[in-house]
């Protein structure tokens, strides 16, 4: 037996029965095309003893044939599992790799750097606890870095590592590392990550990846692996109010009726009451059934079957929620959409929205604003194509229960499906679930209204303004002419014309983005 960490992991498990079982960390690597993502993962796998010999043998053979690293092993070939990727030398789709150390099991998603594959990066990010963002020390922070940081933050990745790579080519200069890390923090501070840690590495040489580097004595922080093993990503999911979408109704025998699902947030205890949304009934939890026996308490992430203490009508797609803090029931959502389909958003098209276990028909308006994924700034946007992020109102054909994505990743995200092609069109995040009973119709016109003013409001304003304005005109005309008849004629003459002019003026301005600010 050699002394690779994998072996150490096993002997630990076998000899120390009391040792805590390893936890799981899901992370993604992202960054620009040539910043060394694949090399970094290759190094992580290699230096933790997680690349079997036969794969190494094949890798060096293929490096000679396809490799882009000269005489060095091209780790990209280990991860680029599709023949098209090896031939073109680019990563097209997410690759998942698995490795372990005594402390943790890791699932790493290597995501493509090219802009046209942003949706595949989002696939990896949607389930990740942490993102490792690579930058080339000499190139510093570039638009790709900002774009990936932004999408990671948008999809709720809580922890970020900035791996400043290729330090060997930058003479291991501390000042350069400090500058790059400082630039990044200045940009990323407002993105709301729970932690940002910067590490100087030379992935090709394995420096500060698994083993510390003596070439950078000025750096006293952890290596990348040390940080990945220690970072505390325990989510606050259990602290959130209880949520569970009902996946299946289980009725194997006439006297058993259970509701199966995975707990999305919070804690469930027998004896407590839950709301059954989107309806308005509540029921008490009699049993929490699993194949390993009944539980008294179940937590977020567990797949269970719930039995109520009374007969009650519950269907797939309903949401069980904390009766004291239920989710918002609505048919109108303010959302951020990342468009992932080749076919751009078409407000006239029929879409399906799938959230939790519920699928409903949805009308999707044109965006009125979007997010520039390179700067994070809100910009005017009136259409939505692949890899763009827009702020879009979505109207459902029936009410469902939602939380905002910022509050709850499990009950604030959804996908849009194109009804004609069955393709997934967009990934959506609920920014606001509008708990209005009667909400204004979502505008689907070509020139969207930015201020949220309805035509009725503009007309009422026009009448109101005219009453005030015309009274003023009559007073002024009387003061100048001392003729009541003439003053009344001037005043009333303008009433009709100016109501019309004012109304039209308002409707035009409602569509002009100039000077519009938006509160979120």
């Amino acid at each position: 037996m050699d002394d690779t960490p994998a072996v150490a992991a096993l002997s630990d498990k076998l000899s120390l029965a009391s040792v805590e079982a390893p936890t799981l960390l899901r992370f993604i690597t992202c960054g620009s095309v040539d910043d060394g993502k694949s090399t970094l993962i290759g190094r992580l796998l290699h230096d933790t003893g997680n690349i079997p010999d036969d794969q190494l043998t094949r890798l060096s053979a293929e490096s000679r044939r396809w490799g882009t690293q000269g005489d060095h092993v091209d780790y990209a070939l280990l991860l680029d599992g599709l023949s098209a990727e090896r031939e073109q030398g680019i990563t097209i789709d997410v690759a998942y790799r698995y490795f372990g150390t005594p402390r943790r099991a890791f699932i790493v998603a290597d995501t493509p750097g090219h802009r046209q594959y942003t949706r595949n990066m989002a696939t990896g990010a949607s389930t990740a606890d942490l993102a490792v963002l690579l930058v080339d020390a000499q190139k510093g922070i570039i638009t790709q870095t900002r774009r990936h940081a932004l999408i990671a933050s948008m999809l709720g990745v809580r922890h970020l590592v900035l791996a400043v790579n290729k330090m060997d080519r930058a003479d291991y200069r501390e000042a350069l590392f400090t500058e790059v890390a400082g630039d990044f923090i200045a940009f990323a501070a407002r993105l709301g990550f729970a932690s940002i840690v910067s590490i100087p590495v030379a992935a090709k040489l394995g420096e500060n990846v698994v083993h510390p580097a003596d070439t950078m004595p000025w750096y006293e922080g952890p290596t990348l692996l040390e940080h990945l093993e220690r970072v505390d990503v325990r989510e606050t999911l259990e602290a959130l109010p209880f949520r569970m979408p009902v996946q299946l109704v289980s009725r194997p025998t006439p006297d058993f009726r259970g509701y199966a699902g995975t707990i999305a947030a919070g804690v469930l205890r027998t004896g407590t009451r839950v709301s059954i949304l989107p309806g308005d009934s509540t029921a008490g939890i009699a049993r929490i059934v699993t194949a390993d026996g009944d539980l008294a308490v179940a937590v977020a992430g567990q797949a269970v079957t719930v039995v109520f203490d009374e007969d009650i009508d519950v269907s797939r797609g309903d949401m069980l929620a904390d009766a004291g803090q239920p989710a918002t029931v609505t048919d109108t959502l303010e959302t951020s959409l990342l468009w992932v389909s080749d076919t751009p958003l078409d407000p006239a098209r029929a879409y399906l929205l799938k959230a939790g276990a519920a699928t409903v028909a949805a009308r999707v308006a044109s965006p009125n604003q979007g997010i520039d994924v390179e700067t994070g700034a809100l910009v005017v946007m009136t259409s939505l194509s692949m890899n763009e992020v827009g702020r879009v109102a979505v109207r459902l054909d029936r009410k469902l229960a939602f939380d905002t994505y910022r509050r709850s990743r499990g009950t604030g995200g959804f996908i849009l499906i194109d009804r004609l092609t069955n393709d997934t069109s967009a990934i959506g995040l609920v920014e606001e679930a509008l708990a209005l009973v009667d909400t204004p119709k979502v505008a689907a016109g070509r020139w969207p209204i930015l201020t949220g003013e309805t035509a009725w409001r503009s007309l009422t304003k026009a009448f109101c303004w005219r009453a005030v304005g015309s009274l003023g005109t009559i007073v002024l005309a009387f003061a100048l002419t001392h003729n009541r008849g003439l003053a009344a004629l001037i005043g009333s003459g303008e009433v009709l014309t100016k109501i019309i002019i004012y109304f039209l003026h308002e409707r035009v301005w409602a569509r002009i983005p100039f000077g519009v600010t938006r509160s979120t």
Partner: protein
Amino acid sequence: MSRLDNLARLEAESIHIFREVAAECERPVLLYSIGKDSAVLLHLAQKAFYPGKLPFPLLHVDTTWKFREMIAFRDKRAADLGLDMLVHTNQEGLAQGIGPVTHGSRVHTDVMKTQALKQALDLHRFDAAFGGARRDEERSRAKERIFSFRSAEHRWDPKKQRPEFWDIYNTRKGPGESIRVFPLSNWTELDVWNYIRRESIPIPELYFAAVRPVVERDGALLMVDDERLPLAAGEKPQMRRVRFRTLGCYPLTAAIESDATTLDGVIAELGASRVSERSGRAIDHDGGSSMEQKKVEGYF
């Protein structure tokens, strides 16, 4: 999530996938290949629908070249658990006498596995098929989605995969299209073994070391399971202490020398191993992208 360890999280994810397919697909089937991954897959499926029974049948594509012990194990499991076990063999291939010894691994796998699987799926009009493939097995599998779509001709298009977000799966498909679903996508070989130990899941004895008759060819140890393996002149089966890391068709699956007679032994040996799981599978060595190519053609 602090209270759930790695295996508990993997188990919950797999159960969620099983339930989602049962809710959204009309005719699911579980592809059962008798090995350790199938054993875990079946165990998870039973947990997903407890206290109910499995809401779908199992399907074993029998190439007729499985180890005899595997077939006995399959039949015993089906009887013990009261499973609806369908067995399908490509009768045309059988009539033509297609086999790995006479026709080579490539033709045998295509006719008796890939074509046989397509026949069975079409025959029963299954629209979703669970498989036990894991992403850590092979690099083209590392790229495959958990819900992987197949055209009406059962072809996989690796460049046109639907993006997959969170645990919300788009299961919609056109007429004739089907889905291959991989609930064990995120499991590793070590996870599977640790789970088998934790849950006491029965697996065939072939996974444990015993003295068995083998011949050595090109460095691979092939078990002589019956008289269908032709011996070269002067070749004599030797009795060696071996076990199998994966189970497939017997002339295509090499044994390894081992003393591991228990689960703990197998797991310890796995940690010390420096070669990957499928290195003993002949069909993986027909070229750099052979698995990707087989999948494009409809292999599981």
